[in-house]
């Protein structure tokens, strides 16, 4: 059985290295501040104790006040997983650091979020629309589209 690691426990470990990084933590998930997202993700991936080498999925949810981007990562070796979340409050200019350099699998998924939800990823090697054509107006998965 894949063990879902407790967000509270991981948050303590993260705070040792990145004091201001964790905004909120619960048993299921950790909410990371956007500015340090890439560093925290790198720490989780490269620390042998966690070894999160596999990215299950990235997705974004529009809550009107903010976008929540969800990362689920797994360690194939230890068979444990963790859900990371981060929030973007600026609707007109939502920017997040890209994690493609850590997990190549983020490539198409970040493009998809950029295309359908309108969140840009800084440091993405090829950030352009994936499902819709370039020149399409708007981002259909946003709740205020339609």
């Amino acid at each position: 059985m894949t063990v879902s690691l407790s967000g509270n426990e991981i948050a303590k470990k993260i705070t040792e290295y990145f004091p201001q990084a964790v905004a909120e933590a619960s048993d299921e998930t950790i909410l990371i501040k956007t500015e340090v997202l890439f560093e925290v993700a790198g720490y989780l991936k490269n620390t042998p104790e966690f070894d999160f080498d596999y990215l299950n999925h990235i997705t974004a949810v529009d809550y009107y006040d903010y976008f929540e981007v969800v990362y689920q990562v797994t360690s194939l070796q230890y068979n444990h997983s963790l859900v990371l979340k981060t929030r973007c409050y600026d609707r007109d200019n939502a920017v997040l650091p890209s994690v493609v350099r850590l997990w190549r699998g983020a490539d198409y998924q970040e493009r998809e979020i950029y295309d359908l939800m309108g969140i840009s990823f800084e440091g993405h090697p090829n950030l352009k629309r994936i499902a819709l054509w370039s020149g399409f107006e708007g981002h259909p998965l946003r709740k205020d589209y339609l």
Partner: protein
Amino acid sequence: MVIKTEPFVLNIGPVHPSTHGVFRMRATLDGEVIIDLEPVFGYLHRGVEKLAEERTYTGVIPLTDRLDYLASMTNNLAYVLAVEKLAGITVPERAEYIRVILSELQRLASHLIAVGAFLNDCGAYFTPFLYMFREREKIVDLFEMVTGQRLLYNYMRIGGFAQDIPDEFIPAVRGFLKQMPRFIDEYERLLRENEILLARAKGVGILPREMAISIGASGPVLRGSGVKWDIRKADPYSVYDRFEFEIPTGTVGDCYDRYRVRVEEMKQSLRILEQAVAQIPAGQVKTDVPFLVRPPAGDAYGRIEAPKGELGFYLVSDGSIAPYRCHIRAPSLMNLTALREMMLGWKMQDAIIIFGSIDITMGEVDR
């Protein structure tokens, strides 16, 4: 005399028999050798995730059929598992067994097409493909007996099934299980050591282990690269923890390994089916679930080992009758991430095989 050459851009697809749907590859060729490649998606984008937000939880099930339309039974399963996780619904034991039986039959049907289409791409023009279709037809007949449909089954429901399987289904599966191993042996005799297949697929389109993990590959693509990872074992859902089966893996991650993993998985599916058919209990097939399911506010990620890899649904509920957000983690899309690296340096005709060995369905890639 040296002939002057210059790079040549070739568009493969979107409508082309070997792209298995409407997929486009923009290849830059130096003579016959691929020196750059850009996949272009979106020709089958229907906005399933947006459509799901407008429907009730049960109403989303027919949409999931149309993702990987060669394995719609497992798509149903991944979705209903996610809703059941979100709403905390448990499923009767008999329904769990039926789910396992249908999933494994679906895996066989999907792998038969994957292997047949792959051999087709290798140049064994339509003979193996028709052999595979002959066997798939029997599975489709079984599904028709249960659901009345032959492609898009829309059979699973939140909390179980709409109706029980007919009495003649289990004997029919037993009959199928008697025949099928002989047919797999027949393919093996014809193809396993086939010189043409070995020459075309061995060592071609290698996906190294580290890259397979990094791109989030799953299913036969990940296992072909030598990673022993199967959600049925690693994170068992339904009643998969009650069955004995192996996880076949490849060694180097070439096209031949991916092909072998699929054939070996078919044999393991038969093993699971034998056990499930022997153990299936009597009883209810549906728990009491309200017609309009209203899961409590929150989120859940339900996932299964679909024939093509990890198929997951990330659902967010706001307590209403429709999902607030329904994200689909599509294995076909993730498995394509390293397509460029796998194809660089190979010739045009190898590219078709490499693409065929990944086994994608465009309905799932574009959603």
